């Protein structure tokens, strides 16, 4: 494609549409859960393929839906390997000393490889207009992006564990200092490492020979996190003020006779607390980071633009939380669909030049599924 002439024209905008419905996904979810429970987890890959095929067939870009091509029977092997790995990790984690350290080291050592394998599998099995996506990042890149933060998080703990004096069983001042310093360093560098990781991902999405690049800067990620911190402090002060007000009115702290008024108040405080310290910061991060990263992803021919609004998203998450709570979890699939819709439909694909002109470059890939199944079992977020 001729980039020079393409850049001269105004971009064509293709909003992403997501047409899945909560009730339809609810039915898929129930049947999937039943079969997974009855087969003791063997059905997991089939359930996953059914779910992804449903979501992809309802994700429309420029008038065409996505498709997922994973083969459940092939993914079963990956599921079993990942399952054995998970059980070994859980069991080792329950023991003390060396087993725990060993498990942590194995975890750190394998995590980037699994992450990389997961991205490769997921993209190679996703198609749009008959073309498969491809993840062009290599394994070394995954280690480069993930190993430093993982080490920073785990090394101080491991070192402190080794320097514990068996007599007193209390960590030495040196060890405590080490842990404190490690945690501080991790917190301070987290936005940077998040940026590095996202750059590793967004630099390597490929479709038909077109690779994306991430142009966002690390400073912008720090900006998002600092503003979230400020918001958190504001929320905390606000909550403390309201609480103090009620306490001074004598409504809280009165002994005995748990009156309805006090219970109602406590309930409101619980909801307020969840809103302020869970939903608000989480939603803020999700919205701002999605807008930041996806709006900075693309290349001269093809570019994304994400304009997610914070207010409606917080409202949606609060409603999701309350309804999941009130329905004892049955609202879950509805919440998943609504959240996906909010996140996907905020994205627009801007193209300069025709969408028809992409062509396949590489051969057919067939990466193993173990990474992606492990990502599912461990709750790893590969951010797609």
């Amino acid at each position, binding site marked *: 494609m001729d980039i020079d002439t393409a850049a001269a024209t105004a971009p064509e905008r293709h909003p992403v549409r997501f*047409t*899945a*419905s909560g009730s*339809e996904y*609810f*039915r*898929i979810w*129930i*049947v999937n*859960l*039943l*079969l*997974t*429970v*009855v087969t003791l*987890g063997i059905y*997991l890959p089939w359930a996953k393929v*059914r779910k992804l*095929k*449903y979501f992809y*067939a*309802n994700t*429309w870009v420029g008038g*065409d*839906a996505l*498709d997922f*091509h994973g083969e459940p029977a092939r993914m079963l092997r990956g599921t079993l390997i990942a399952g054995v790995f*998970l059980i070994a990790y*859980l069991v080792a984690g*329950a*023991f*003390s000393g060396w087993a725990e350290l060993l498990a942590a080291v194995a975890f750190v050592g394998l995590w980037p490889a699994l992450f990389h394998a997961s991205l490769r599998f997921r993209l190679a099995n996703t*198609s*749009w*207009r*008959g*073309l*498969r996506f491809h993840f062009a990042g290599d394994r070394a890149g995954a280690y480069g992006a993930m190993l430093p933060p993982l080490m920073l998080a785990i090394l101080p703990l491991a070192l402190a564990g080794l320097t514990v004096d068996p007599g007193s*069983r*209390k960590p030495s001042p040196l060890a405590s200092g080490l842990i404190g310093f490690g945690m501080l360093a991790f917190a301070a560098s987290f936005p940077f490492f998040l940026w590095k990781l996202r750059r590793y991902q967004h630099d390597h999405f490929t479709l*038909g020979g077109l690779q994306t690049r991430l142009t966002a800067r690390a400073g912008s990620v720090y900006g998002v996190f600092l503003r979230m911190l400020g918001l958190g402090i504001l929320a905390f002060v606000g909550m403390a003020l309201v609480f103090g007000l009620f306490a001074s009115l004598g409504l809280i702290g009165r002994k005995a006779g748990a009156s309805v008024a006090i219970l109602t108040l406590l309930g409101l405080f619980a909801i307020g607390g*969840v809103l302020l310290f*869970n939903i608000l910061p989480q939603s803020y991060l999700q919205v701002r980071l999605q807008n930041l990263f996806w709006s900075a992803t693309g290349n001269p021919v093809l570019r994304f633009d994400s304009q997610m609004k914070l207010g409606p998203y917080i409202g949606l998450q609060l409603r999701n*939380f309350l309804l*999941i*709570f009130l329905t004892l*979890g049955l609202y*879950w699939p509805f919440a*998943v669909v609504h*959240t996906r819709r909010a996140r996907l439909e905020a994205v627009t694909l801007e193209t300069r030049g025709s*969408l*028809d*002109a*992409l*062509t*396949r470059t590489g051969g*057919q890939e067939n990466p193993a599924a173990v990474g992606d199944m492990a990502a*599912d*079992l461990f*709750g790893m977020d590969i951010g797609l």
Partner: protein
Amino acid sequence: MSEALEARYFDGLSSRPQRARLAIADARLQVTPLGDGAATPFAVPLAGLRWPERTRHGGRLLALPGGASLQAQDVTQWDAWVAQQVGATESRVVRAQQSWRGVAVGLLLLLAAVGAMYQWGLPWAARGVTALVPHRVDALIGTRTLAQLDDTMLRPSALPVADQERLRRTFTRMVEAAHPEGAPPWNLQFRQGRDKALGPNALALPGGTIVLTDALVQLLPGDDDAVLGVLAHEFGHVRLRHTMRQLVQASAVGFAVSVAFGDFGTLIGTAPVLLATLGYSRDAEREADEESVRLMRAAGISPRAMAGFFEAIERWRGTQPGGRAQGGSIGMAFATHPATAERIAFFKAAAE
């Protein structure tokens, strides 16, 4: 309705859509690309094709062997054509998920399956897994836990050594009487709480260490029977390796919840784990009570002693600030135990 269907065809090499006419003949799907410079027509066997599931608003995409694919232009037309030309393409699972009645049956079956897993499957599996864990591991965890408790919540006992020895000797005979074939190793430690609120308490650690607080021994002065009953209860936890079993069960429940609600969110996922763990710990208390009755009977002590003990505990709790809602924070945390009235009734019935 004509026998051919028009669809979008992608050759898998370029993103350019082509129009194509579809027809079925001789158990093969015939694809005829249309328009200028169209690709040559071809046919693929129906047997290897996985037709897309019908959804309300989703696209219909059919992957063909070799990387090419078809996409419906008009979903309604596509569905009708497939139903007429190909027949039933959807499995029983898909048909179940497409009808509310199928889903309602599925939900009921799911609840039954989860209930059965919770009631029988998981405890059975946890017993099996626990049996595989060497006893050394229990002992290791127990030693570490006791050391931690000594550092934070407990201090050495002030009971006369003679009293400690008497209880130890009597309980040893009691265990021998109930388990002449031999019992798992146990040892009895006396401690008192650093904080008064800990009060009369007892706990069993993995590996066989039973900790008894001075306040518990002094709760009913001169009445060793109740103390021995409590010891027998804790011995039940030791013999059945309840701590290890609950560790295994809690991990399994946590895993199941993360698979079911895997998409996002952690705050909500912890609630079912907590509930299941509480339920299991109540079951464990019931089992330990049964063991207590068994040991008391073998030693010729009336289980009524335990009923008296619970009434004394209730009285003690009434004197504490915060009243009845308070439970011990470790071990025999009475809040997690079956209702006290129910347990008193159990021991009284066992005495008859």
